[in-house]
Structure formats: C-alpha cells, structure tokens
C-alpha cells in the first residue's frame, strides 16, 4: 500500500491525533486522578481529566495550534456497553476567549456526551466509566494556516531573489563570503544550488539573506507567526568544515533578541538551538534526500508597539556556534563548505513548498505557484524547558534503579557487574555476563512489568496492550543481544547486532528501532502487537554464548555451550511503555513512574523509528457509500469509493459497517474519524416539511465505533462503525439507519491514523 496516495487520491495527513480511553478503575496509575490513558497518538503529549466527561488534550507542538485555528474531528467508541452511545464535542480551552482555543498552552478540551438509545432521557456527560466499557475517544487535529486573510489562496515567499542569492544578498554582515551560483544539483533536480565559499573577514564567517517585510505588503507583521526555511547540504569533499554546522537564524528586529538560532550538522543531522528568546516558536529539520536538509524556524512578531516596518532576518551562518571566537580569523581553504538553496520566508509556522523568487520582484512575490496544505507539526526541541513533552506513558518496569536482583527482576544463569560508563557519561551502566563451564542455554535478565491484572488494553477482553520495550546495550565480549517475551517466547527470534547496530533476526516482523547513542551504545526499542490472555508480562533481555546467533536448540538464545566467565554485554536503562511510542527513560523504584517523552528533532520523518508509526499520515481512508435502497427494504448494502488502505466494507443489521484493511495493522490502537454526508429528503415518517427539503425535525445520524459483539469493534484487520439514526416517529436514536434511507443516498467518510499496515491481507 502506498502511504501517500496519488494525484487524485492524495493522502490525508493530520497534525496530531490520539486515541485515549476513559478509566475510573485503575486505582493508582497517576495517583488515582482518573486521567484518561493515551493508547496511541501523534503530536499529543497527554490527556487529563478536567471534570466528568471532559478531558483536555495537550499538543506536543503547541505553536501549531496557537490561536485555535485548527480543525478537530472526533469519533466516540463505546466497545463494551451496548446500550450506551455518545458523541464527541470539542471545546475551546479558554472559557471566555470566544473564537480562540488553547492559547499558548495549546490544548483542546473535549466533552463526551452520552445518552441511552432506548429512551428519551436527556443526554448528559459520560461518567468516568470503568475501562471495561471501552469508552475511547478518537481525535484527529488538522492545524493548517494561521493566516487571518480568508481569501488568501497562496502564500508569498518574502525572501527576494532566492534563485540567485548573490545578486540581492548578502546583507552588511556577510563580508568575506563568496556565493557560487549553479554549483550543484538542488533538491528539485535542477542545477541551481548555491555554493558557499568562506573566506577570512572581520565580521565572522557568516552569510545572511535579509528579507524586508512591511505592513503595506503583508497586512501587518505584528502578532503573526513567521517561518524561515532554507535547504542546506555539506559542500565539497575538500572542504574544511566537515561535520560542522550550518546555522539558521530568524530574528524580528522589532524585539530585542527576538528569535533564535538553529544549528544543524549537515553531515549527521544533529541539531541544537542557541539564543532562543520568548517569541521563538520552534524549529524543524527535514531530510530532503541526497544530502539535503530543510531547516526552518518560526517566531512570532509579538512587539505590538513597534512601528510597522521591520526586518526579519533569515540567516545562514557557517560555523557551529554563533559568536565563536575562532570564526573571525578562520578562512577556509577555498572549497565550497556548504550548498544552500530554496530560501523562504513566509507567514505561518511551517515551511510550505518552496517558491523561487527573482530580484525583479522582491518582497511581493506572486502568490500563485502552489496551494497550501496541511503541513506536519513543527518539532520543538526537547531542551527548551517548556515542559510540553510530559506524557501519560509510564515505565512499566519497576526497580530499574537498582542493580541488585529483587522481586521485580532477577538474573538467570548470569552475573552482573556495575560501574561501567553509560551513554550519558555516568558509570551507571552494568554488565551482564555468563558463567563459566555451566552449559546454560540462557543468560538473561527477567524484568516483570508491574501490570499484573491491572490493565487490559487491547482488542479483546483479557488481552494485553501493545507494548514497547526499550533499553541501551553495547557489545563487549558478546556481540548480539536478544529480546524475548517471557510469557510466550514471541520475541525469541529478535536479535540485534551490537557492533553494526542492525537487526539480524526478526522473523515476526516486530517494530524495531536501533538508534546510536554514541561510543558503541545503541538504544533499542521493540514494539509488539497486543496478545490475548496474558496477565503477567515479563520481558527479558539476554545474549547468546555464541558469537553469532544460531537457531535455538532447546532455548531461545542459541545453542547450548559453555560460557566464558565474564563474557557478556553492557546494559542500561530498561523501560517498558504501553503503546507504540517509547519515552525518555524514567528510573523507577517500587512503583511505576511516568516518563517524559521528548520528540527528537528530525525523527518525525526520518523513519528509523517504527514506533512513531506513520506520524500524521493517514494509513487508510475512504468513503462508505450506502446507495439508495428500494422500497421499504430491510436490507442494506454498501460499497467503498475513493479509498486507500482498505479492501472492503460489508453492511449488516441495517446499521453496521464492517471495514476491512488492505493489510493487517501492526497495532490495533489506530484512530478512526468519520464524516457523515446524507441526501436529505422528506420522509413519510417525518410528517413535516417539503419534499427534498430539510424537515424541521429531520434525522441526524450518529456514527460510533462499535460492533455487535462486545469489544470487537477495533481489530487489527479492520473496524466496525455503527450508525444510529433519529427516528422521527418517537424522536429517539435507534440502530435503524440504513433501511430507512430508502430514496436517498448516505455516505460515511472516514480516515484512519496510526496502526501502520505491514502484514498480509487483512
């Protein structure tokens, strides 16, 4: 399946989505605060309970939602309470703000209103039901542009002469920098990249492209977010600054120090920020392929008293730290140190497709080259200290802070030594090593997840949730690390080579990421799908006595042979998270602890992390069409139209639509949102209104994620939507929507986020 659709069926993409579950029965997840539990998500950092039936969803990237100009689409799921139904109603966070929601904290409140379809009782907030009811909220957010001009069809690139930077730029502070036009292949395939050759100068080895924005052109600078972006790439092989950084700075000269510098190592993609001020909204780096990076940063022009005309600077500075002492005298060697291309300065907080501009048309470039779309979330650096990264994810392992075996974890056939240098430079890592002589099959540490009997997220009653185990490991005498799930052995064939940092065995196709943590360390994360009927869950990590993995004989780590005392691997920071995303490590004691999730710059798109699933990109979408029925038929049929990622739909019971995915999902914690489109005509039952008009009490249709069988509405191979319809005869909602649709057509549009289709036919 293509994730990206095609020209006529383009892939929807959300800026954030989440699936969370209401639960009043988990006695002490976070001090008994009844907060809903995120089952999976993207761009959402946490969900908290505000009051009965009201929850607050916090965005990971608040700058994208500043001002409340976003669209939120929701769908309620009541999987195990057949007489309960409800609807999701988003609510602006700021009670008196009128048209804005969230403010800078950028959160969205959601009310879930429930009612009984069998009576005319008034609806009310759904209470804090037990998780056994499977009351879940599916929400997707589309944060688009923050422009106030409703007729603005295009966005201007306010950086002038970007096709040949040397004509207009540099500004006054760029002396000594030589730009070489048409020096390399640009990201668009043309030979238009500009080479940057740095020479000695008294102002530092920096290059600045300056764009001037005035009120007459833009309709005002104040109060608007602005985004500057540029493509950069490492230069010629003979360059001096190998692995050095290109810096992008975006400042508002109406604010003292108003902006920030984003530093990017063009060889590795590593990033950092400097000189960050309060109006700095965030930055983002995208891997544009072929060595190119697109780096962007956003600020808000928040000096409301500054006279209208001002400058915004989008700069390119060729040394890693602005103001470094050696920048003044450094002169390079005559090689092109970097290539740059595609400078763009625009309203909003995300870089939109680059629009080339010319010198003859500076500052007011034609707004006619492309259409706006929903861009993905900006990535806010984890070190900004704003605390947006706190999630409700927990480290489900306990006693990870001790290296003494205890009731929560224990060693099998191996020893443990402490005091080894960890990735953070401390000596908190430890070594697990094999015993000599004993022909042990297994050398491993058992970690019990402290969730015995307490939670049963999953598709079926008693099933365990999707979980992700993560840890750091480093090769010593042994090269391969193995992971297994102690209760089932289902991870017994997951093997990672700690020298190369690659997966060498993964026959079950688990979601695995292996990320370098430096100095030979790797952070390894593996996600498994939910399983049924597992109460106590153990994860164990171990290694084989063999130098390479071999098919198991009687165990799961390799053939049986004698060990060499002291041989083993280094190990650090084990963690188990619910869902498909692993957080920063949180050391636990006797109780589970919450973890901090910091979305790392660049990883949103660079795809090494399967745990991030598909980000905001929809994994399936389409339209269920219920055609005009004949007569007063009680039968119902449906077909799919304009769809992707799904293979079929079947209608049953006149109100139920079972959608099957094209391929099975890796997890069942995806998010489904729907939109209803109905051909509304006068029906005899209504007794009111004119033919083909909207009767005054015409039926509304309520879609809900629910199946006829309890808790079977959400499966890895598909999902089930039920549609209730208001019956004009007694005005209650009933499950009778379809056969009463005679004479009119009915459509359910849907989008699915997350889950990730990877397996065979659904």
């Amino acid at each position, binding site marked *: 399946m293509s994730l990206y659709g095609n020209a006529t069926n383009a892939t929807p993409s959300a800026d954030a989505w989440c699936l969370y579950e209401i639960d009043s029965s988990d006695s002490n997840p976070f001090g008994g605060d009844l907060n809903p539990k995120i089952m999976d998500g993207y761009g959402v950092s946490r969900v908290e309970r505000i009051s009965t039936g009201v929850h607050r969803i916090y965005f990971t990237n608040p700058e994208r939602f500043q001002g409340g100009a976003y669209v939120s689409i929701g769908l309620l799921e009541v999987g195990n309470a057949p007489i309960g139904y409800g609807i999701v109603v988003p609510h602006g966070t700021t009670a008196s703000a009128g048209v804005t929601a969230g403010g800078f904290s950028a959160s969205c409140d959601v009310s879930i209103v429930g009612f009984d379809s069998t009576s005319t009782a008034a609806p009310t907030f759904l209470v804090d039901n037990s998780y056994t009811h499977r009351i879940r909220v599916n929400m997707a957010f589309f944060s688009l542009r923050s422009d106030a001009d409703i007729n603005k069809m295009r966005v201007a690139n306010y950086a002038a002469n970007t096709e040949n930077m040397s004509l207009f730029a540099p500004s006054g502070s760029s002396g000594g920098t030589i730009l070489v036009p048409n020096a390399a292949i640009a990201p668009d395939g043309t030979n238009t990249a500009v080479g940057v050759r740095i020479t000695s100068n008294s102002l530092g080895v920096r290059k600045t492209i300056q764009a001037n924005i005035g009120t007459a052109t833009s309709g005002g600078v104040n109060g608007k977010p602005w985004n500057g972006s540029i493509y950069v790439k490492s230069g010629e092989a003979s360059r001096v600054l190998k692995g050095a950084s290109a810096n992008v700075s975006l400042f508002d000269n109406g604010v003292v120090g108003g902006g920030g510098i984003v530093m990017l190592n063009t060889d590795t993609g590593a990033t950092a920020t400097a000189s960050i001020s309060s109006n700095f909204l965030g930055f983002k780096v995208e891997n544009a392929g072929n060595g190119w990076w697109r780096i962007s940063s956003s600020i808000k022009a928040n000096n409301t008293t500054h006279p209208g005309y001002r400058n915004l600077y989008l700069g390119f500075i060729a040394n890693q730290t602005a103001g470094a002492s050696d920048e003044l005298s450094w002169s390079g060697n005559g090689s092109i140190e970097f290539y740059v291309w595609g400078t763009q300065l625009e309203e909003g907080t995300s870089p939109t497709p680059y629009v080339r501009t010319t010198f003859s048309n500076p500052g007011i470039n034609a707004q006619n080259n492309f259409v706006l779309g929903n861009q993905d979330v900006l990535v806010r650096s984890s070190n900004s200290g704003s605390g947006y990264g706190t999630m409700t994810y927990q480290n489900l392992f306990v006693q990870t802070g001790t290296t003494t075996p205890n009731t929560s974890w224990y060693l099998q056939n191996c020893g443990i030594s402490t005091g080894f240098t960890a990735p953070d430079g401390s000596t908190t890592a430890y070594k697990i090593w094999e015993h000599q002589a004993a022909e042990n099959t297994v050398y491993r540490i058992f970690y019990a997840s402290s969730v015995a009997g307490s939670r049963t997220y999953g598709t079926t009653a008693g099933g365990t949730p999707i979980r992700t185990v993560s840890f750091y490991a480093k090769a010593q005498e042994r090269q391969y690390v193995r992971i297994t799930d102690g209760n089932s052995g289902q991870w017994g064939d997951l093997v990672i080579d700690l020298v190369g940092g690659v997966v060498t065995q993964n026959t079950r196709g688990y979601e695995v990421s292996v990320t370098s943590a430096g100095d030979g360390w790797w952070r390894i994360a593996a996600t498994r799908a939910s399983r049924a009927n597992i109460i106590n869950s153990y994860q164990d990590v171990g290694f084989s006595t063999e130098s390479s993995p071999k098919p198991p004989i009687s165990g799961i780590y390799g053939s049986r042979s004698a060990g060499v005392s002291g041989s083993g691997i280094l190990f650090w920071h084990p963690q188990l998270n619910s869902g498909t995303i692993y957080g920063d490590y949180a050391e636990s004691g006797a109780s589970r602890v919450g973890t901090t999730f910091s979305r790392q710059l660049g990883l949103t798109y660079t795809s090494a992390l399967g745990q991030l699933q598909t980000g905001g990109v929809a994994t399936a979408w389409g339209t269920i069409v219920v055609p005009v029925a004949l007569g007063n038929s009680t039968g119902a049929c449906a077909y799919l139209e304009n769809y992707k990622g799904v293979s079929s739909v079947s209608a049953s019971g006149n109100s139920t639509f079972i959608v099957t995915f094209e391929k099975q999902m890796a997890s069942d914690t995806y998010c489904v949102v729907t939109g209803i489109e109905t051909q509304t005509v006068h029906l005899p039952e209504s007794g009111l209104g004119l033919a083909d008009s909207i009767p005054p009490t015409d039926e509304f249709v309520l879609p809900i994620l629910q199946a006829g069988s309890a808790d079977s509405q959400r499966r890895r191979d598909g999902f089930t939507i039920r549609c209730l319809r208001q019956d004009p005869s007694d005005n209650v909602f009933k499950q009778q929507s379809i056969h009463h649709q005679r004479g009119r*057509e009915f459509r359910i549009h849907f989008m699915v986020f997350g889950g990730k289709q990877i397996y065979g036919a659904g």
Partner: protein
Amino acid sequence: MTTSAYIPAIFGGSSVKAWCLTGFDGTLSGPSVRNFINGYNLTFNDAAYNAQRNTNGTSDQGICTGAIPFKFVTPLPNNRYKIFVSPKTVGPNYAENGRAFFCHALNTTQYPKTVDGFWVRFGMMTRGNDDTGAGFDTFINGVTNRPAVGEILNRTIASATYQLQVLVI
C-alpha cells in the same frame, strides 16, 4: 516508514482541498460571516445563507432551516470530495452542560454538493426543561432528545458560542 512523508510537503500535493473554522454571528438579521475565524479555500456563503433566510423566514427554525452554506473560493474539479464536519463549543460551559451536537454534510436537490460548495446541517440535542435559550421550548415541542436544527445559530448570543469545523479532503 521507509519512504518519506515530507516529499509532498516540500513539493506540493497536499490532500487538504479546503477547510475552515467558523463561528456565527447569532443575529437574526445579519450575515454570520463575521465570526469566520480561519480557513483555506472555504468560506461561509453569505449570499446563499441570506437567500435561504429570506425564503424560509426566521421564526420556526431559528435562523433558516439549519442548513449552512459554504463555498469554495476556487471551485474544486469535481464533487467527489470528502467532507468532515465537527461541532465545536466555546465558552464557559462544556457542550453547554452536556448537550450533544450533531452536524453533517448534505447532498440533495435543494442543498446540493457541487464543485462550488456544499451545505452543512448543525443541530443541538435539546432538553425538555431547558429554558436557557431563546425560543427553546417552542422550538422543540417538548421532545426531549431531538436535535434541533437551526437552534444552534440562534444560541450564539447565549451562554456559549458555537463553531463549525469543516475539512474537505
């Protein structure tokens, strides 16, 4: 994912054809476009709205029949687009103390879905003893959980305001 989602973001090809977030003025006589908040290629259709109100009057269903017209700034190539509509409440009371809101797109002869725009219905599930809204009890005829079309527009000057979120894919 092994291929990258940023390619369409860089070089165009977005799937969002149009969107808007709009509130309503709430007055019976004037256009409601003044609370338009944000959007792309989609705006409140003042002309169609006023024409409908003039035709149907304002007494029975709040303002008009509860059908709310939207128009594309630039028409779409065909009418096979997907419409996702969601209500949104703003104000001191969440969902106005527990009322359900419903909305959906229309496609009928009187309210067609075309390349130029479409209509949306927006209703509120009301309560029998509710006395907080203008004309409320008359409007619902004592029915307790019937969604009342049009009422939503008439209540924007009450204790809360309401918005529509529309996404066209």
